[in-house]
C-alpha cells in the first residue's frame, strides 16, 4: 500500500481555502418559486424542447429530448407549470432558449421514478441527462460508447477536486461513497474495462480512507492518493499521475485505453440505475469571503443563482465578483438571474480584496508561467504571438493544447491575462481554420 505519491510535472500550489465547507454535511436547498432550465447545459447540440407554456410538468419528467448523439435530455427539476419557453440569461453570458417553470407550492416534490432497463445503459444515461459534473458538462453516455476499434482497459474516477474553495466532490465521496464505487463498477462493466482507479488528492485523507475501506476486497479497483497540486484533476494530468501515460497531442484518453469520469457523474449513474433518478439536481459549494454561511447544497438544476446566494446570506454589498466554479477555471457572472446548471460545481462570491487586480505590467520573461504550465507550453511567448496576430506560429506551437487551467496566470508576477490571451488565440485559430477552405 505504501508507495510514493503519484503526481505530474509542473503545476502550481494555490492556497486551498477548503476548510470553510469541507467539514459540513451536504444539505438540501428548499424549493424556490421559479426555475429556468436552459436547453443547452452541455457540450453538443441543445436539447429539443418537449413542452409548451401552460403545460404542467412533474419533477423528474423529461422536458427536452436529446437532439442527436452528442446531446442529452433535460428534466423538470420541480413539479409545476411551464410558463414560458424563451431566451433567458445563461451562465455563459448569452441568452439562450430556456424552459421557465413555476413551482407548484402544494406538491411534495418527490421523484416518482422506476429504474431503467439496464440492457441499454447508454440510452438510459442519455435520457437521464447525465453529463460530466467535473465542469466540462460533456454528455456522459458518449464516453460509455467505445468508438470503432477502440478498447478501454482502464477507468479512472476523478476525485481530485484540485480547485481551491470547492468541496462538493469531497463531500460527495464521503456521503455517497458507495454510489461512486457502484458507478465505477457499472462503467467498467459497460466498457469491459479491466482496471478501475479512483484518484483522490492527499488532502482529502478521510475520503481516501473511506474509499480504501470500501474497496478493500476488490482486486480490480484501486484507490490512488495523489499529490496536492493544481491542476491534478485535469484529465490528462490525472492519467499521467495514475498510469504514467501521456495523452498524445490532439488525441483522446480512449486512444490510450483510458476513460475517466468525475465522481459526481459516477454517483449520478449509480443513482440512475439503482433508483431511476435522472440528473435534476447537483451538489454545489457555495463559498467565498462574501458568503455569510458557506456550505455545500443540493441545488435543483435551474435554480436562479440569486436565490442560492440569498439562501446562504451573501453580502451583496461587499461581493465584487461572482464566480461559477472554482477560482482557477470558473466563469465570472454578470447576471445573477442566470441559473445554476449541471456543470456548476460552486458559487464563489469574492470581495474587494480578492478582486482588486494589480495593473498589468510588461512580461519580464521570468519563465514562471512556462514552469507552471502542465501542458508544457510557453505561455508568455504564445501570449505575445496572440497579441501580434501570428496565427500560423500559434498553430505550430500547439497553442490549442492549452486547456485554460490558469496555472500560468496564477504565477505571473506581471499579471498578464495569459488565459484570456490563450482563449483569444484559440478563437483566432478557429477563425483562421474556418476561412482556410473557403
Amino acid at each position, binding site marked *: 500500500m505504501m508507495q510514493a505519491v503519484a503526481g505530474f510535472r509542473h503545476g*502550481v500550489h*494555490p*492556497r486551498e481555502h477548503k476548510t470553510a465547507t469541507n467539514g459540513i454535511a451536504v444539505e438540501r436547498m428548499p424549493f424556490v418559486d421559479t426555475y429556468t432550465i436552459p436547453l443547452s447545459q452541455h457540450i453538443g447540440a441543445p436539447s429539443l424542447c418537449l413542452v409548451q407554456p401552460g403545460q404542467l410538468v412533474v419533477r423528474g419528467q423529461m422536458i427536452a429530448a436529446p437532439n442527436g448523439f452528442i446531446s442529452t435530455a433535460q428534466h423538470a427539476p420541480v413539479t409545476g407549470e411551464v410558463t414560458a419557453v424563451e431566451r433567458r440569461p445563461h451562465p455563459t*453570458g448569452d441568452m439562450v432558449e430556456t424552459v421557465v417553470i413555476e413551482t407548484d407550492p402544494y406538491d411534495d416534490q418527490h421523484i416518482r421514478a422506476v429504474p431503467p432497463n439496464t440492457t441499454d445503459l447508454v440510452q438510459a444515461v442519455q435520457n437521464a441527462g447525465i453529463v460530466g459534473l467535473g465542469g466540462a458538462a460533456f454528455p456522459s453516455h458518449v464516453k460509455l460508447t467505445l468508438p470503432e476499434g477502440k478498447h478501454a482497459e482502464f477507468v479512472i474516477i476523478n476525485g481530485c477536486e484540485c480547485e481551491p474553495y470547492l468541496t462538493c466532490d469531497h463531500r460527495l465521496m464521503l456521503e455517497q461513497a458507495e454510489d461512486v464505487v457502484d458507478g465505477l463498477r457499472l462503467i467498467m462493466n459497460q466498457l469491459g474495462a479491466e482496471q478501475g482507479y479512483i484518484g483522490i488528492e492527499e488532502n482529502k485523507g478521510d475520503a481516501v480512507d473511506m474509499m480504501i475501506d470500501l474497496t478493500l476486497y476488490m482486486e480490480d479497483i484501486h484507490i490512488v492518493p495523489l499529490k496536492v497540486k493544481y491542476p491534478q484533476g485535469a484529465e*490528462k494530468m490525472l492519467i499521467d499521475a495514475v498510469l504514467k501515460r501521456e*495523452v*498524445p*497531442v490532439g*488525441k483522446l484518453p480512449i486512444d490510450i485505453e483510458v476513460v475517466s469520469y468525475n465522481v459526481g457523474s459516477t454517483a449520478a449513474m449509480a443513482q440512475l440505475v439503482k433508483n431511476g433518478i435522472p440528473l435534476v439536481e447537483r451538489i454545489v459549494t457555495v463559498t467565498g469571503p462574501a458568503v455569510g454561511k458557506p456550505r455545500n447544497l443540493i441545488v435543483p438544476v435551474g435554480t436562479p443563482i*440569486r436565490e442560492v446566494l440569498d439562501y446562504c446570506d451573501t453580502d*451583496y*454589498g461587499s*461581493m*465584487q*465578483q461572482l*464566480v461559477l466554479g472554482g*477560482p*482557477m*477555471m*470558473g466563469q*465570472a457572472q*454578470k*447576471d*445573477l*438571474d442566470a441559473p445554476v446548471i449541471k456543470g456548476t460545481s460552486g458559487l*464563489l462570491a*469574492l470581495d474587494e480584496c*480578492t*478582486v482588486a*487586480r494589480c495593473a498589468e*505590467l*510588461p512580461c*519580464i*520573461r*521570468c*519563465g514562471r508561467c*512556462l*514552469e507552471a504550465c*502542465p*501542458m*508544457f*507550453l*510557453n505561455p*508568455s*511567448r504564445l501570449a505575445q504571438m496572440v497579441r501580434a496576430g501570428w496565427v500560423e506560429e500559434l498553430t505550430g*506551437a*500547439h497553442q490549442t*493544447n492549452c486547456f*485554460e487551467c*490558469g496555472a500560468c*496566470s*496564477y*504565477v505571473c*508576477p*506581471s*499579471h498578464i*491575462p495569459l*488565459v*484570456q490571451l490563450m*482563449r483569444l488565440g484559440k478563437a483566432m485559430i478557429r477563425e483562421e481554420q474556418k476561412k482556410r477552405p473557403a
Partner: protein
Amino acid sequence: MNRNPPQLHISTSPFVTEGSTTGNLMRQVIYALIPVLIAALWFFGITALLVVGAACLGAMGTEWLLRDKQTPNTLPDGSALLTGLLLGLTLPPAIPLWMAALGGFIAIALGKVIWGGLGSNLFNPALLGRAFLQAAFPEAMTTWVAPGKSFFSLYPTTLAPPLFKADVTVDSFSSATPLGMIKFDEQLTALDHLLIGNIGGSLGETSAGLLVICGLVLAFRKVFDWRAPLATLLSVVACSFLLSWIFGTPEPGFMLLSGGLLFGAVFMVTDPVTTPITPKGQWIFGLGLGFLIVVIRIYGGLPECVMFTILFMNALTPLINRHTQPRPFGG
C-alpha cells in the same frame, strides 16, 4: 431589470494569483544588493556611494524623461533603479561621476527604452551601459585602484567636470585587477583575498564570498532561476579545470572567484528579461557563457570579459529560445 450589485466585475479566470509582482522581484534583488553596496563602501569609501548614486540618477532620470507620456510612470517598478545600481556596482571606483551618470543614461535609453521598455529589451541594459562606457572611455574604465583608502577622501578623477578629464595622470594611483595581474604579469592573487574582496576591481565585484551568499539567498527565495548561474559556474570550473590540467592555465578556484564572474552570474545571468526563458535554454546559455569566459580570459585580449560575453550570449538568446521550446505534453 438589472438588479446586480453595481460593482460586479467580470474577468477571465483565474481569479486568484500567487501574489508576487514584478516590482516585488526587483525590490528583492535591490535588497540583495545592499550588502554588496556596503562592502563597496567598506573597501572604497564614500566614492562607492557617489558612483552608484550617479549611475542610479542617470538611469532613473532617463527612465522618467523618456517615458511614454500616456502610460503610467514606470519608476515604481524599481527596474530602472536596479539597472542603475547594477551598473554603478560594475564600474571602477575611480571613474568620474559624469561618466557613471552617462552610463545610466545609455543603459536605459539604448538598452531599454528604444526596445519598448521593461521586458522588451534583448540586451542587459546595465551591461550595455557599461560596455558603452568601456568602449568610449577605455582608459578611465581600466583604471583600477586598490582598496584601503581613507573613507571620506575622493579619488582625484572622481569629480572631473562633465566631458573632461581630471588634471592628474592616472598612473599615479592605479593598480591592477587579479585577472590583469595573472594575464600580464603572471602574478597570482591568494584565494582568501578574493573571497574577502580586498583587491582591485569594480565596486561590487571584489568580495566573492558576499556575492555567493547573496546569490544563494535570492535563489532560495526563487527570485531567479538557479539554472543559468549554476550552469555558468559549472562550465567555468569544468573548462578552466581542463585547461589548467592540460596547459597549466589558472586553476578553477581562481577563475571562479576573480573578476566579474560571480557578480555577473548572480545578478546578470539571472536577469529574466535578457536570458533564455526555457530551462534547457538556460543551461545552454550558462554553459556557453562559461566556456567563452574561460577561453577569452585565457586566449583573449580582455581578461575582464564577463560583460562582453554576457552581451554576446544575450544576442544569441532569441535563437536559443527558439530552439529550446519545451516539448508539449503528449507531443
